[in-house]
């Protein structure tokens, strides 16, 4: 199974919602669209579903141009952020509805419902009404509907956003398992980088209607090809700073410097942007590759096992994340250590040159 967007763009009135985008989604994997609200995730999904016609470009499914095929004729299932179920149907009838529309016989429907209800732990609730269920159960019902439909393309638009934190954790764990055997192409939209990582699979980083990068999720995270992409895929936000390379040495305007070894040695001298994630900026050094900068504490947040320190370094606010509990006072001067092995280097065009 393949789903390809070929140079798809969407312009409404004079406003560009999606810039020309080409995407080749991967079968049998979670394809995650990651980006903030209004980055274009939902619009892209609507184009994939056939709810929206792109202004330019084509959508290909299994080697067939389906750009003009209306949504009713595509085999698509969609689950939304809001829990959408038929309010006057029981859970059973809700799950049965897509199969009834397909004209399946009673026995097949019944078997499928029990199988899916079992998977989603809905069996005890099958004869309840949606308004008697908790949010998590309502969303499971919606997911069950998408599952039994045996759609070839399943679009999940922030399905966990309205759920409690712990429930989200639990369902996020189950989702890939559920869809693994369905043979469907799954596209998942989220605003949270950690969610994309935990779901694994492939990810596309979106920003203001542009797909910045697409690839295996871990690669997009560890080798963002632009500073913009790194920023999208970072929670807490990645620290970025200007760095100058000269005489085989990188130096920060904050004073710290380190030798440009290995691959870095080959880079031409000049200005670069260095990016390092908060957990690579720590209160204690990480071996001899760490370099020290002096910082003024703005704020500390302690989460039980970790401490997040917001600190000002050379006029910029950086975020540091360290293990353990460290209560620091506002205005206190501290040393922070950048793990230079983990630094990402971007050139003057914001493209990744070193990771």
């Amino acid at each position: 199974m393949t789903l390809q967007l070929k140079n798809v763009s969407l312009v409404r009135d004079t406003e560009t919602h999606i810039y020309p985008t080409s995407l080749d989604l991967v079968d049998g994997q979670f394809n995650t669209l990651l980006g903030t609200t209004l980055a274009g995730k939902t619009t892209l999904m609507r184009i994939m579903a056939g709810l929206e016609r792109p202004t330019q470009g084509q959508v290909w499914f299994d080697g067939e141009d389906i750009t003009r095929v209306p949504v009713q004729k595509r085999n698509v299932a969609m689950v939304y952020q809001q829990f959408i179920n038929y309010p006057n149907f029981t859970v059973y009838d809700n799950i049965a509805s897509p199969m009834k529309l397909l004209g399946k016989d009673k026995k097949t429907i019944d078997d499928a419902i029990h199988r899916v209800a079992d998977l989603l732990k809905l069996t005890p609730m099958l004869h309840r009404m949606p308004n008697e269920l908790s949010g998590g159960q309502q969303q499971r019902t919606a997911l069950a509907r998408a599952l039994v439909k045996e759609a070839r393309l399943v679009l999940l638009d922030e399905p966990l956003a309205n759920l409690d934190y712990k429930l989200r954790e639990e369902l996020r764990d189950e989702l890939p398992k559920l869809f693994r055997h369905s043979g469907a192409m799954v596209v998942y939209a989220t605003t949270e980088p950690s969610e994309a990582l935990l779901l694994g699979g492939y990810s596309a980083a979106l920003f203001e209607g542009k797909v910045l990068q697409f690839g295996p999720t871990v690669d997009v995270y560890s080798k963002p090809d632009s500073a913009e992409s790194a920023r999208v895929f970072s929670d807490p936000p990645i620290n970025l700073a200007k760095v100058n390379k000269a005489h085989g040495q990188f130096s920060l305007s904050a004073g710290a410097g380190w030798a440009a070894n290995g691959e870095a040695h080959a880079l031409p001298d000049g200005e670069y942007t260095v990016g390092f994630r908060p957990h690579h900026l720590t209160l204690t050094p990480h071996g001899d590759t760490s370099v020290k900068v002096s910082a003024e504490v703005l704020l500390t947040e302690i989460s039980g096992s970790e401490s997040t320190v917001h600190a000002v370094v050379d006029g910029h606010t950086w975020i540091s994340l360290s293990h353990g509990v460290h209560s620091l006072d506002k205005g206190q001067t501290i040393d922070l250590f950048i793990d230079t092995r983990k630094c990402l280097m971007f050139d003057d065009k914001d493209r990744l040159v070193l990771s």
Partner: protein
Amino acid sequence: MSQKAQNNKAWWLVMPVVILVAFNAVIPLMTVVNYSVQETFGDNVFFYEGLKWFGQVLHSERFHEALGRQFLFTGIVLLIEIPLGVAIALAMPRKGIGVSICLVLMSLPLLIPWNVVGAMWNIFALPDIGLLGKTLNAMGFDYNYTRQPFSAWATVVAMDVWHWTSLVVLLAYAGLTAIPEDYFQAARIDGASAWSVFRYIQLPKMKRVLTIAILLRFMDSFMIYTEPFVLTGGGPGNTTTFLSIDLVKMALGQFDLGPAAAMSIIYFLIILLVSWLFYTFTMRNEN
């Protein structure tokens, strides 16, 4: 390349409506337009008169007076019904059994046919045997809607208010119940007075439904015919002869089809113009 409709079959579903609208709106309207520019004495003999009837109607004192009365009536009715309707909606309970009781009570007047309303009030207000008329006279008011213009006006206005305020109540109530509870809680915490809550939360949130209410009531009251016709027949004299009554008198009473058709079109355009102006003006600040 065409980006047009992906599923043309859907158009067939619209056909019944198109046919219906054609038969009950477009074709009669065209007939009226046809009459408005011709002179006829029956027998299907027509003479083309151009815009003569329009000029005649626009310059006739009779039309001016009827139009004036019409605006006055609509103005009075709106000024009473809208605030009254909002006030009743505000006073209605938000939960419990009271809600259904109030809603049923409020819907009752809306279910009564226009001519019945007229007939009811006709009897109700009779000075000699009607409950209202007799009571007022017994209290020392000189009340007689068939003889005094003021009594007639007051009765017509009261009748319309009685009949239609409920509509405003229901719309306003729907608007009010759609406001999330958080707003009222935030306002309580901010120490807002009841007036402030109304002015800054309820009224802005009701804006859309009130716009609809005002439009509906404007159009309806501007076209009022049956009730005053049954109650006063446009009298005493011409004091309650509104546009529509005047129009019917002209068309059926005097059989002046040409001027009547021209007047209908002018009438129609006035309603359209006022509604459009009102709508664009109130919605101008949205987004």
